[in-house]
């Protein structure tokens, strides 16, 4: 955690801040989703409460908090109450492990702008998000409602099917950068496109050194799989008004429903953050390195401490810009594409994405091996 | 009883710093819990779960030995055990589902007539 009591305190506060950041983004995202859907579907969306309908968020929060506390008679109370709480966990824990800016060096202290750094970052995030299936099952079975249960079975089957494609699509990236550590990956994507092959150096001035130019297939597969993981539309088979009511959260209302909401948006944020980290250079500004930004900040402020702080702030802004782009794509896709049928979903996952991800893994392995040879 | 005497003889400090012994004892306790589950429970799915518990217990001691002997072979073996366990669970569950479809029951008492 840290060496001195001061660092430990700061790191503890940081964890809380990351959590609050994630939770506070949810109302903004909900507003964006509703206004965005209005924009896409050529209608207004919420625009009555406050400027641009922004106060709608507060009104919604008050509504959620004052709703009736309801438990179905047939429900298993323990699981029914536990599920929404557990729904928060995977998103929060995984989001804390994503680096959001370059480390802040203040005097002799170094603060990472992320909840905690884990050497095997990717494995940790995958492991944590694989636990999401439990909340769905607990909610579905605990509700004591057959539609909830069917929705939960569908949703969790979908989640564990797409986890395979998700995990395999990242293997190419891991092999290419030779690390599980997210910070190391971001460092490998600094500057303009440049790599070494067969003893030659290939470089390009007009492309940033992003992972997507090395692993385009992996990027597509990963992004598609994260849609399925977060149960968003083209893959929101967990819900279905005609057949399953609202899926596993049919019986939930008020604050408990809100927790599921936060969980879903947390998944989206983790997916967007990972997308930015793996394929779009993380917190780095395109075409520049962390060092260049630091030198610029140093020239501007004239002190090492403030220079480092400014660098972190700039990188933080960049990370959030990238995050926002992917979150917008999530919303955009949701209101543009029609949904799949369940068998189409399973076919896509097992018969299309899994083989492509495997092929990507094998081809990447071969290329990494051949390129690393010196002949 | 015998265990207790060995403790006194070798003068192992249980409540001091954590060593290999602690992990091995934890592993042994979990393993025995698993054995008890396999032998005493009647639900076929709980039997499978108890087997998983036993495999996990073994994994703990593999990793602990690996760490305290400075070798990675333990981790490789855990890798293998995990694969086998996943495969075993898949087969076991498929059989359990078939049995349930046929007898509408997962209590092993109902298909003891497979005994020769």
């Amino acid at each position, binding site marked *: 955690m840290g060496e001195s009591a001061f660092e430990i305190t700061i790191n503890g506060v940081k964890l809380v801040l990351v959590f609050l950041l994630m939770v506070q983004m949810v109302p903004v995202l909900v507003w964006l989703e509703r206004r965005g859907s209005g924009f896409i579907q050529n209608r207004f969306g919420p625009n009555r409460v406050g400027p641009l309908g922004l106060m709608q968020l507060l009104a919604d929060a008050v509504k959620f908090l004052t709703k009736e506390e309801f438990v179905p008679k047939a429900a298993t109370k323990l699981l029914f109450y536990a599920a929404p709480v557990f729904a928060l966990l995977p998103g929060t824990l995984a989001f804390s492990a994503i680096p959001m800016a370059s480390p802040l060096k203040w005097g002799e202290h170094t603060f990472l702008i992320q909840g905690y750094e884990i050497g095997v970052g990717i494995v940790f995030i995958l492991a944590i998000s694989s636990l999401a299936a439990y909340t769905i099952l607990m909610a579905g079975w605990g509700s004591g409602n057959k539609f909830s249960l069917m929705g939960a079975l569908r949703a969790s089957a979908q989640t564990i099917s797409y986890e395979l494609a998700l995990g395999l699509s990242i293997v190419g990236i891991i092999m290419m950068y030779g690390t599980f550590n997210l910070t190391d990956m971001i460092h490998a994507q600094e500057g303009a496109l440049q790599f070494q092959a067969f003893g030659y150096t290939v470089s390009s001035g007009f492309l940033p050194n992003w992972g997507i130019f090395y692993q385009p297939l992996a990027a597509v597969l990963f992004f598609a799989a994260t849609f399925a993981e977060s149960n968003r539309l083209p893959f929101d088979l967990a819900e279905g008004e005609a057949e399953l009511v609202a899926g596993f959260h049919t019986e939930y209302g008020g604050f408990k429903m809100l927790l599921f909401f936060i969980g879903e948006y947390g998944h989206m944020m983790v997916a967007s953050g990972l997308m930015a980290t793996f394929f779009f250079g993380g917190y780095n500004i395109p075409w520049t390195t962390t060092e260049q930004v630091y030198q610029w900040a140093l020239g501007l402020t004239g002190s090492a401490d403030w220079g480092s702080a400014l660098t972190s702030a700039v990188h933080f802004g960049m990370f959030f810009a990238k995050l926002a782009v992917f979150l917008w794509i999530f919303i955009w896709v949701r209101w543009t594409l029609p949904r799949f049928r369940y068998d189409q979903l399973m076919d896509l996952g097992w018969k299309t994405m899994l083989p492509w991800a495997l092929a990507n893994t094998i081809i990447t392995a071969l290329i990494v091996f051949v390129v690393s040879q010196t002949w | 009883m015998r265990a207790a005497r060995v403790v006194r003889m070798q003068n192992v400090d249980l409540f001091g710093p954590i060593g290999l012994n602690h992990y091995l004892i934890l592993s042994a306790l979990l393993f025995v819990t698993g054995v008890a589950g396999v032998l005493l429970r009647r639900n076929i799915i709980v039997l499978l*779960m108890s087997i998983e518990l036993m495999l996990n217990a073994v994994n703990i001691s593999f990793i602990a030995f690996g*760490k305290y002997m400075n070798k990675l072979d333990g981790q490789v073996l855990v890798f293998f055990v995990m694969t086998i366990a996943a495969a075993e669970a898949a*087969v076991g569950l498929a059989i359990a589902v078939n049995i349930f479809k046929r007898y509408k029951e997962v209590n092993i008492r109902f298909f003891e007539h497979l005994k020769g």
Partner: protein
Amino acid sequence: MTADTFLFWLLAILTLVSGLGVVLVANPIYSALCLAMTMVGVSAIFATLGALFIAGVQMIVYAGAVMVLFVMVLMLFDLRTEIATFSRGRFSGAVKIAVVGLLAGLLAGVFAMTTALSDGIAPSADQADATKSLGALLFTKYVFGFEALGILLLVIAIGVVGLARSKGGTHAKR
């Protein structure tokens, strides 16, 4: 009590209690959730032992896939209570005694063995490169076992599909 000691006892108690829950709880769904908890605890124990990659794999494979399958099957059957959770009779009594005996034997073995082993054994500190060497080991010394496992998995995948093939639904043969 140092942080390491505290962490070990916390995780040990968590694992043991949830492990006992698997065997003692009558409702198989709770027992499956207990087992999932045990898996998470075991994974955390791996992490405290420095095997971070294996800890992650443990979570992904056991807690994320195998146990979800168990929970799904149990919820599909919806077995809230069982006719007889435990087996009764003279045989079971003998089994209980035998289990205690096994425990005693194992513990005795643990103490006898480790005190013989523990001279000059120091835990390895550097785990930064462990994953890489783990991979290297897997594909050199243990490559035969690895390939054999691959074949085993293929066989099992085909076998399970054959076993569980449904006689209806969208993918049925007409």
